[in-house]
């Protein structure tokens, strides 16, 4: 009875700071300098909090713990970790939140430099998107999971529509219509799980499923699995939704897409781990997840091969590499999960490099189409160098981080007795190389065919500090490629816990 329940101080900070910043930025509507200072300070504070925070839990409400014979108990030893609504901050959460905080800082710096007016609400939406990213990886109950996924999809629509083009508004409308469907499905899944197990907490629900024989109720569990899977597909943009999701990626500003892709990959990891912990024992559950991942990888990379615009190529490649993340998770072995999580971290970083290079093309080039450009390498050599390095990392060439995670994924697929999956992963990485270098060759390396008149594009000067930001990101890809153990130390424990003790967050 002497055991006390201690909440972690950093989790409320990580959740509340972005929301408060968003409110303040909304109020500051158009004061450029104030918005710039407030947003950069806030993003830096979030980065520091994510680095220095210890690991722990945050509870919102209490409930009696359930003992192994089904009776209720209020004993503190169970009470201390079985609480209904909770957030958990652990090593996996730390590395993903650190990566998104870094990206948020960079994106805020870029967007406050490059946009000219009315960007208070826009930056506020960015902070809220970051909030949904951070919250979805920390939640350990279905209720918050549902709310965060809903908020996240509405924010995606807002961030995309803010770019102002007609196609962007169309993409946002389609995405929101679909969010209505999948959100309803997620609500029904939540209600079914609550009805079966009686717990909103994921840990409680899993231990209930392990202790109880459901009998006829298994069918209800399958239905809730299908609806949760629908929201997983939707939040991460997997196979049937990928046309809508790639629409979203390519019609937002590229710097906004950096946050969007980070959000969708973190959601893939979070909901995927919940699916694996909760339903991993069901027959055909992992096979369904695996088949969708394979389909996503191939469809994404094939669609990327036949595009003729660098933005569209990147959009489909992001979709395809989401499939790489989920292949690892749905393999279900510790090695596979480590590979999937590591791939998520790497993917967020190297796709950001490529997207920021794409953003720079809007300043230095006449659009991002393959056909109407050429000769950027002569004009801006550093940009070409960064784009090529990013493409190397994305296609899994040795000294970079993409190689390490794909190696782990291939090993896991071979170890799981599925060499075909390993072959598909190899195909995807080779085709990524082809697709990216089709774009990079014609935009950067090919001699310019129709030289632009000098000074026609200098209406808005590119944000300063861009080479530094790109340099830091490329350095991260190199460091993670040479010393993968730096990231793997964070991920291994979480992966092992998911497989062997799934009820522990």
């Amino acid at each position, binding site marked *: 009875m002497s055991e006390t329940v201690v909440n972690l101080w950093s989790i409320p900070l990580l959740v509340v700071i972005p929301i408060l910043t968003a409110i303040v930025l909304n109020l500051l509507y158009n004061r450029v300098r104030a918005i710039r200072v407030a947003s950069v300070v806030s993003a830096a504070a979030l980065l520091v909090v994510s680095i220095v925070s210890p690991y722990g839990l945050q509870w919102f409400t209490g409930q009696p713990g359930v003992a192994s014979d089904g009776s209720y108990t209020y004993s503190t030893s169970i009470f201390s970790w079985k609480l209904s609504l909770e957030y958990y901050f652990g090593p996996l959460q730390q590395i993903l939140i650190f990566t998104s905080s870094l990206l948020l800082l960079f994106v805020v710096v870029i967007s406050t430099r490059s946009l000219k007016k009315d960007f208070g609400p826009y930056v506020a939406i960015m902070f809220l998107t970051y909030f949904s990213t951070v919250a979805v990886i920390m939640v350990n109950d279905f209720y918050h999971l549902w*709310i965060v996924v809903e908020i996240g999809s509405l924010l995606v629509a807002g961030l995309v529509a803010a770019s102002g083009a007609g196609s962007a508004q*169309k993409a946002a*409308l389609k995405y929101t219509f679909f969010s*209505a469907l999948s959100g309803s499905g997620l609500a*029904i899944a939540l209600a079914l799980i609550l009805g079966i197990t009686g717990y909103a907490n994921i840990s409680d629900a899993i231990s209930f499923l392990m202790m109880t024989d459901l009998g006829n109720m298994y069918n209800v569990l399958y239905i809730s699995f299908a609806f949760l899977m629908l929201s997983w597909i939707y939040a991460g943009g997997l196979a049937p939704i990928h046309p809508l999701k790639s629409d979203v990626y390519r019609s937002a500003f590229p710097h906004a897409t950096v946050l969007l892709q980070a959000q969708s990959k973190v959601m893939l990891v979070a909901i995927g781990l919940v699916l694996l912990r909760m339903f991993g024992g069901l027959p055909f559950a992992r096979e369904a997840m695996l088949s969708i991942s394979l389909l996503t990888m191939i469809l994404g990379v094939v669609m990327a091969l036949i595009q003729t615009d660098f933005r*569209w190529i990147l959009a489909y490649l992001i979709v395809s590499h989401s499939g790489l993340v989920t292949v690892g998770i749905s393999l279900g072995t510790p090695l596979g999960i480590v590979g999937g999580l590591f791939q998520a971290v790497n993917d967020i970083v190297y796709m950001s490099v490529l997207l920021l290079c794409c953003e720079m093309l809007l300043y230095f080039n006449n659009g991002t189409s393959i056909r109407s450009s050429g000769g950027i390498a002569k004009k801006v050599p550093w940009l070409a160098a960064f784009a090529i390095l990013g493409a190397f990392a994305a296609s899994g060439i040795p000294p970079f981080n993409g190689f390490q995670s794909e190696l782990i994924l291939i090993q896991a697929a071979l170890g799981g007795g599925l060499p075909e999956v390993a072959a598909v992963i190899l195909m995807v990485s080779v085709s990524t190389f082809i697709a990216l270098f089709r774009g990079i060759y014609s935009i950067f390396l090919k001699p310019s065919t129709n030289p632009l008149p000098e000074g026609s594009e200098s209406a808005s000067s590119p944000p300063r500090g861009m080479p530094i930001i790109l340099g830091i990101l490329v350095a991260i890809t190199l460091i993670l490629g040479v010393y993968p153990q730096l990231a793997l130390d964070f991920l291994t424990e979480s992966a092992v816990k998911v497989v062997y003790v799934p009820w522990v967050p």
Partner: protein
Amino acid sequence: MIEVSLQLLTFLAASLLIIIGIAGMLFLDNLIKKLISFTLLSDGVNLALVSLGYVPGGIVPILEPGASISDFPKEAALIFGPGIVLTNIVIGVSTTAILAALIIMLYKRYGTLKASKVLKGEME
């Protein structure tokens, strides 16, 4: 007269609402009609969730002064469903607002509410 339980009937109504909502979102061509279909869909989900928690012959889950605490868990309706529904209503309103804003913007740009013209798939 055959006694049909209220719970079964509301389940039926909820599933009809959900089917009508999804069919409306799929087959109706007008964007505002699609929006109304979405509100019907979310109404149907809400009704299904509320009727999940219904206990036949039960009482409202509010512990009134003087009521017996030992009978309360047996008689009171479940509160899980309604707890979700309250959030779902709020989410439904915000989604409706965002959809309406996007529809207004698209109407200003394209001058039509026909989904087959506005949301047409574009091939590069």
